[in-house]
């Protein structure tokens, strides 16, 4: 079996709902700005403009 089968199924939401109004607004704004930034359409294999992932989140300093 693969190292972790559960990572292959994708993100599951049993009862998917629309994002709440506040989140939707933030996501929509993110979408608009990203579309503007991606006018020169990047290739799928090209690193995107998104911030590279940061250091591990699983630390008491971050989560406690």
């Amino acid at each position, binding site marked *: *079996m693969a190292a972790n089968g559960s990572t292959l*199924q994708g993100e599951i939401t049993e009862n998917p709902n629309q994002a709440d109004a506040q989140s939707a607004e933030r996501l929509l704004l993110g979408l608009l700005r990203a*579309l503007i930034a991606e006018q020169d359409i990047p290739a*799928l294999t090209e690193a995107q403009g998104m911030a590279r*992932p940061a250091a591990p989140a699983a630390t008491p300093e971050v989560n*406690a």
Partner: protein
Amino acid sequence: MSASNEQANKPKKQMRVLVIQLARLGDTIQSLMALRAAKQLYPEMEIHFLVRERFSSAAKRVPWIKEVITLPTDRILEPVLKGQQNEAQALAGLARWLSPMIHDSWDMIINWTYSDASSYLTALIPARIKLGYSRRRDTTLSATDGWSHFIQGVVQGGVEQNIHLTDILTTQLLTALQIHLGEPADEGNSAVTSKAFFSLDLTGFNERDLGLSWRDPSRKWLGIQLGTGYATKNWSPERWSKFASYVLSRHPECNIVLLGGQEEAELAKRFYAELPSKLRDSKQIVSLIGRTPFDAWASIVSKCHWILAGDTAVIHLASVLGTRVLNVSVGPVRHAETGPYGNGHYVVTSAQACAACESGDFKTKTAHTCGESITAEAVYAAWSYASSEWAHRRQIGLENHYSQLGWSSELGNVRVYRSKIRNANDGGGVVYEALIQRSLRIQDWNAQVMGHVARAWYCGWVPPIGQEVIRSTVSPTLIHRLRKMAETSDVLLKICDEAKRTATTLQLKSATMRSDKIMGLQQREQLRDLGRKLLELDQLVDRLVVTEPTLRGFNQMSKVLMHNLHGDHLSELGKETAEAYRQLHQGITILKDWIQHTLKLAKPVALPRAPLLALEAKKDLTT
């Protein structure tokens, strides 16, 4: 009728799937190829395809796609960019366009764009299953599945790996479908590529008016596309012109048709300026640049014997239509990921990496000089070898062919590959076999390792270690690098072990707490120490990778995996962190196995005693 037959014959519930592909036409066609494979196995998929308006033509001609939804980028963005609308007005327009999709009910969203914009879109549309990039509630990026981690950490992270993008997308989707829908009804041996992949509308299009005639079976048509959409990936039009001269003067049975959009008119001018006047005026060469809408373009590509081009959509179009391709791969391109898909395609690349290649900068705008070392003679020799395969059946080597043409000196400047779909028992997917034996570069070796690691992580089955490494290609330079890497990978493995143990301790300690926030001072100190230790180990990996950049893939994967932890409580995060380090440990163990295998392969081999004795006996007889 048996119960299992009844089950199989029961009509399956349609699965409504939204596929988001906001990249360019080449990526769109590769996505369509992967979708075709999935649709054959899971006909219950009802596919809705979201694509930019300007690249929607291909998807609109696919009969098994239920609906093509277009993103009118210009209509939404232009008013903001021109200052005619403020951000709030543009947002309202975007929300109106999005509203029907949000209110629809989706079983699955597959985001195959892997971009910022597409991740927001995926997050906004509700669905039961999501694959690809999305966003969390706090709008930070989320890679929802294992293959998306790999794309973020390795493919987009600029680390060489050798699994083709079409294979990644296909495997990612088929694995998810298998998990959610079970085994497919049939084995899915039908071909994905076909001349009839698209249902083309050729009303009003007469190829003869354009100077094309396919009626004479003795004539061979070669389609050349000069441009690639990025100047950095173009092979010079002057060299294409010289290549065309060789073809037309040495192969009177050949015709050439120039393909491409209006934006390639300037390249065509340069192409014609270099062409000898007698060829320029002949009917052997036709330019359709700027004159072929998608349907006509696809129809011509499907009828050509060969398509010759750089890294651009036409090579994927030809692949899907079953037309053979010779791809001159220059600039910021990794052909193993995005080369022509299928059997018998050729790829010509430079033998020497240029400074930009060496630095690993594969952004589409970065200028590369590697294309300058590929001459028209080298490409012509590769094409003439490929196009006469029916005669020589590859019984003579490519080196001999270059030599027969008197161009042996060109061999040092290029690498030539031939594509092959591997047998499923050998790992499946497309592989590009080198036709000129050369020393294996560390980056090519590493690409094979990373591909192998990905298969182990996400496919659960791997071919034998190093089955495609040929002994004679293992050079002393590679051996030296691998010996050094063996030491560093030992250290990396130990770090992973330690991090795994630390994360497990964190999980166990936090599992006994009533809350993540209220705890005793001693507990708090212990957790803080464990967290600090994890951070230190992470920094240690950063430093290690500076000394051995070949291990960058594992470091980047580590960061991606940590970024994508999704537990709500400390104990869950500890468990996931341990799982992530277990995954990395597995990958590094595979790397070590590859190092050992390659070093062993390079060791001098003693001849067995029996042949030696036979030789000595022979020597005695002759003396």
